[in-house]
């Protein structure tokens, strides 16, 4: 039986990591739920952003957080452009999945070409900072990404519920033709939304570069758990992925403590399948 302290510590770590799961899932779920596009390129963008953030702060030797000012806007433009392409070809959700998979393969090859398949670790001044709360450690990067995740989810929630833009987005998701008939500029709004999703991938990518040692092959290992988060959290929901991410993160780390780290991947999928079979209406 592991000590109580260890259990609490790993639950907290899992919770913080779950925040990152939620942040990655947020953009993916928004584009799936509201645009009807299963954007596998989300993972390509995630890692592209992580590598760019790594390169940026290594080259200029500055705080990696400056990347937050540059990468998200740039990725917003990329995402909006990609969406314009997909719109032009009127794609079914499934074809959008295949198309964006092709894109992910290209991005993956590109990353290997530029940064090789070697492991890369971003070194920065705050990397060893920890906050200690009565014996429980909160590492800097994990806490930061958790905070960003909460911030992004709240911002998305606020925009969706309180602004005209958010109402327009929800109207389009519900009935695209009707919304156009009521004067909503569908093309502009959906491009903004797609751009936002990609910008969220960029933010998540910066967090990934702060926490993990980077390797191109890891791109695919995120797919499973993040999809589990999105589907558990609900498509197009703002706080859903964050909550689901926290649930999965905590259950994973508890599994690691009680059974073995190598069993952790089974948790998210078992949760997902269980939920799907027991409460299919909730997906």
């Amino acid at each position: 039986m592991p000590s109580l302290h260890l259990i609490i510590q790993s639950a907290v770590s899992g919770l913080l990591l779950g925040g990152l799961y939620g942040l990655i899932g947020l953009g993916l779920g928004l584009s799936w739920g509201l645009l009807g596009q299963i954007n596998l390129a989300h993972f390509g963008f995630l890692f592209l952003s992580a590598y760019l953030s790594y390169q940026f702060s290594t080259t200029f030797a500055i705080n990696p957080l400056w990347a937050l000012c540059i990468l998200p806007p740039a990725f917003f433009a990329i995402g909006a452009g990609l969406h314009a392409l997909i719109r032009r070809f009127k794609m079914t959700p499934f074809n959008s999945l295949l198309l964006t998979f092709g894109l992910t393969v290209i991005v993956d090859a590109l990353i290997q070409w530029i940064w090789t398949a070697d492991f890369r670790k971003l070194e920065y001044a705050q990397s060893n900072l920890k906050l200690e709360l009565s014996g429980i450690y909160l590492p800097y990067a994990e806490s930061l990404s958790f905070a960003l995740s909460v911030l992004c989810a709240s911002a998305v929630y606020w925009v969706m519920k309180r602004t005209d833009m958010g109402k327009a987005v929800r109207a389009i998701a519900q009935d695209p033709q009707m919304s156009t008939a009521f004067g909503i500029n569908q093309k502009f709004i959906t491009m903004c939304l797609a751009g936002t999703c990609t910008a969220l991938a960029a933010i998540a990518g910066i967090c990934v570069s702060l926490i993990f040692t980077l390797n191109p092959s890891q791109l695919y290992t995120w797919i499973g758990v993040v999809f589990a988060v999105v589907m558990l959290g609900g498509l197009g929901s703002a706080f859903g992925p964050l909550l689901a991410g926290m649930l999965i993160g905590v259950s994973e780390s508890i599994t690691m403590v009680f059974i073995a780290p190598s069993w952790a991947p089974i948790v998210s999928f078992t949760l997902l399948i269980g939920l799907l079979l027991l409460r299919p209406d909730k997906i």
Partner: protein
Amino acid sequence: MKFFPMHTNRPLFNILVIGLLLAWVPWLGLSAFWLSFFYLILYWSVLTLSWNVFSGYSGYFSFGHGAFFGIGIYTVAYMCGQLEMSFLPMVCLAGALAGGAGVALGALVFRVKRVRGELFALLTLAVTFIIATVVLNTPIDGGPGVYLNSVQVPKLGPSTPATFYLLILILFVVALLVSRYISTSKLGVALFAIHDDEDAAEVMGVPTFKTKLAALFISSSMAGIAGGIHAVFVSYVTANEVFSINVPLFVVLMSILGGARHWAGPALGAVVITSLQYLFTIGDNALMGKMALGVILILVILFKPDGFLGNRAKANSRKAAKQIADSYGVRSNSAHQDTPTHFHVDHQHAHHHAHMGESAGKRQHSSEVLLSAKDLCMSFSGLKVLQNLNLEIYSGEILGLLGPNGSGKSTFINVVSGHYKATGGHLSLSGVEISELKAHQIAQQGVARTYQIPRPFTNLTVFENTRLVASYARGISLTQATPFAVEALEKVGLGSKIDALPQDLNLHQRKFLEFARALAAKPKLLMLDEVLSGLTPSEIQSAIDLILSIKAQGTTILFVEHVMSAVMALADRIAVINYGQLLAQGDPQEVMRNPQVITAYLGKKLDNA
């Protein structure tokens, strides 16, 4: 090059010839490198063909093919590599286990009605990761991987690579035969129908659950056998490689590229992509190869979403329909294609039947109850659409079912056809309780329906649309169903459109295709859901003639309609429902004078008016 001609038996012949020719290859004196290269091409072809048999045909894209393939690999790796069992029986076991896993997974997820399309894809991906974790953490692998160097393989060819080549070649030929056979079989056409409109297929008599399970079994067991052979070919297996995302993604890519609806499309895609990959690997450009793959995938999705052989698959099925039409001598009255066909109601025939039905008058019917609803209830999470509805339909009559919008007419049809399961009450057809039956069983009992907005299977020809329904609803083979389909199509005047795809039909023709499908099923009870809406007056007249001629054959008709003139002309009796309850029923003239009915339609008179 006419490699795949359309005559029914030519493809089978071609497959065997190709197989025999390829069987010579090991004796050509090629190096082990080339034999391995050919092995890989055939191996990917088998994986892709096996995936396509279920996923390509039915549209349920599985990302879990790696799981079935992996089960095959690890069955052989564990049984042969660690327990030193002999090879061939274990390959068979690999197929059985993978097939069993496929059926188990299918039985689990297809029970959930909402699991469709992309949800299924991700679920199967999740299962792959779960199996990988289990393999990694148990003695099956345990982490370091399994060596299979010492496994004895029966010697088929002059060398070890030749043996593997021949093993996979046998499987390749089998896979091609299976793929071809299914694509023209009753099972295959049902899978195509599921691809296009699963709910409609079920309501028209296709046992969708069983069909999916059967195809998934064939698909996953072939993948398992391929995995079993491949395990010994690579001679060292690790969980990370086996369960990587590569297998599911490559098979999807290859199928799409080649054309998932053509039986040979997946093999073509596999040949192209495996060759391309090898080309780049030889040139030491693996990264370029990867990028090229990505670009190809994107270009195909954008510009050729049906794949290389997609158009050929369509052309083949149109040609087959055309041949049927010719062999039955269907009149091609193409001059009147867009004008509604007028029906010559065979009056003598009609009279004859009317006499048989104990009465000659139009407004009479037999006293035998065909369908009886007792206290029928249907509610959607609290919203009660049918509330203790009691209604009887007599044999041989046309019952007009009326009611304001939202009164429950369409829901009633959906409940009777089994699409919705009643939340209470009883339904019986000729005295047999049907409320507990599945939709396809009810269809097989002799209940057919049409949809207000036609729901043809969009990728099947008009002929195949009709024949499929005849075959499943009557429980006969496709060949036996052919004459019924042709007859039904001629009756509704779509004889000249027999080889058309639904997209080439106008609204009126699509509505008549709905009729044809229903007729081909030879139902006891035919439920027509607003067949007249959206038709021009002359089209309405031809539809009315058609309905009368259907009645003359002894079919009972339930008729939901808003075109009142047609209702009054056609109906023997009228039932009016409102708020899911029976308001009035009886002779049409009397019912329409009923004050309650008038109130329901037009509202209450103001007292002081």
